């Protein structure tokens, strides 16, 4: 390229040929491609610097309430913060309110996920560790045992383990749970309601229009903040919630 340019400017007209007066070329017109790229890079860097300075200036003026100044960690002020990162924390997800749930069993059938993204959650702090567990055993069971015919859960998703006389621990095998709420109803009726249904956010795809919410007869589904995605009820439910987040 340079050679060619040089050639252009080094060609001399043959003798006797009247030459036109050379006009000094415009600086920009004379710019070669390397210069152009250099200019472009500098321009990009300058624009980037200007944008960064602008954002920082915006934060210092509008986002004066941010604790860290650089990255949002969902601090106490995030609910009122104007920064775009804080807005992410204000996104909502679907959740089931256990106080409204009537354990109709529709969560098992209406979710777009299979099995349902609604699972039973055990609030251990509330559990009575009962031998005759209304959430584990069928009401008409003759013997208290782990035999399949005695279990209320249609998929045997609740595991019973002896702790000490007369206490038994009940754990949920979540992949097996289909969210039918039979155990929730049994526990609520015969125990203290430590089994509660919740939308599990490691499975929920957070549909815009939740299929279960549309079919819920108790209107128990609602949008909750993504940073507080569980609505467990009862004693020390907050501790359970903290573990899940």
């Amino acid at each position: 390229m340079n050679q060619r340019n040089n050639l252009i400017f080094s060609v001399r007209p043959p003798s006797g040929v009247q030459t036109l007066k050379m006009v000094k070329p415009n600086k920009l017109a004379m710019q070669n491609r390397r210069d152009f790229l250099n200019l472009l890079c500098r321009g990009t860097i300058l624009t980037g610097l200007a944008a960064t300075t602008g954002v920082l200036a915006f934060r210092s003026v509008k986002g004066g309430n941010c604790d860290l100044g650089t990255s949002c960690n969902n601090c106490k002020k995030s609910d009122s913060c104007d920064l775009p990162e804080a807005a992410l924390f204000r996104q909502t997800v679907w959740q089931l309110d256990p106080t409204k749930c009537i354990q109709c069993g529709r969560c098992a059938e209406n979710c777009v996920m299979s099995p349902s993204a609604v699972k039973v959650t055990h609030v251990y702090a509330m559990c009575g560790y009962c031998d005759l567990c209304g959430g584990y055993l069928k009401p008409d069971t003759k013997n208290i045992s782990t035999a399949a015919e005695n279990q209320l859960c249609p998929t045997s998703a609740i595991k019973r383990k002896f702790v000490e006389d007369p206490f038994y621990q009940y754990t949920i095998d979540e992949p097996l749970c289909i969210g039918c709420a039979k155990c929730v109803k049994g526990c609520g009726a015969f125990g203290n309601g430590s089994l509660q249904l919740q939308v599990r956010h490691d499975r929920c795809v957070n549909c815009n229009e939740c299929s279960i919410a549309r079919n819920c007869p108790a209107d128990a589904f609602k949008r909750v903040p993504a940073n507080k995605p569980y609505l467990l009820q009862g004693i020390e439910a907050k501790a359970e919630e903290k573990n899940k987040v």
Partner: protein
Amino acid sequence: MKQKIIIISALVLLLVLITFMVKDFFFNNPGNTNPYQFELDNIRKGDSAKAVFAETQQIKTTMEEIHGIATDSSGKIYVSGKDSVVIFDTKGKSVNKFRIEGTAQCIAVSENGKIYLGIQDHIEIWNNRGEQLAKWASFGTDAVLTSIAVKDENIFIADAGQKVVYHCHIKGYLLGKIGLKDPATGVPGFIIPSPYFDLGISKGGNLWVVNPGRHSFEKYKFDGTLLSSWGKASMAMEGFCGCCNPSNFAFINDSLFVTSEKAIERVKIYGADGTFLCIVATPDQFEAGTKGLDLAVDKQNRILVLDPMKKMIRIFEPKK
């Protein structure tokens, strides 16, 4: 002619279609029921025809909350609750009402007519004219007093909060604690998941205490020695259901047990050895979710059931 046939056929088809749509919209298809729905109504239905007792009288109370019921030797009925105690005669007429501070969860009447009230963490003693005779010190901040029984100079107090029975002298000093877990003497310890923990003294002079988490009755000497126990955990009629039952009991005919349960609201009678004898009231006679059906038996052997949901005393007598 051909056109007529087409029109008639089209009309018939339209009618069939409309019929199908009406059926689909307005009539439930049993095939569409939710397979995962868990029906508890069948359990609660009960069969009142199987009950050998019939409800003969209801006495309405005007109290905001009612919790405890007791009778005295003359047949008067005492009901304790929030801020007050009401006394009824045998016919159900209110004869006196007096105010108290707080909610009396349990009540007992001694042979000399003194009224013992368990108010959260302490005991108060009143007479039937509404005069406070004594107020005992608190049994502790965790105390939840749920039952009282008085026999001569002994008073037994069930504390659901601290899972123990206090044996006190009627003058107010502690004689001993009963029911603390002790493998050496075979005392299993009380398991009380919810605040329903009842006790009573049989005519034989033994203390009977419900161990609700074990669905059993435990018989103790006054010194705390465990003598025997009976009970069976079962949703079936002959057992005690749920996490923790029976919630309340009383003695009838000196040695038979009248028991009440929550979760499946029912009142039954058991023999002295724990044999299931008969049904007094079935779940369909109570509102779903009724808890704390306190019991008393009057001198005519009528069973008095305190229904805190309906805020009334319900009297059951043997069917004729």
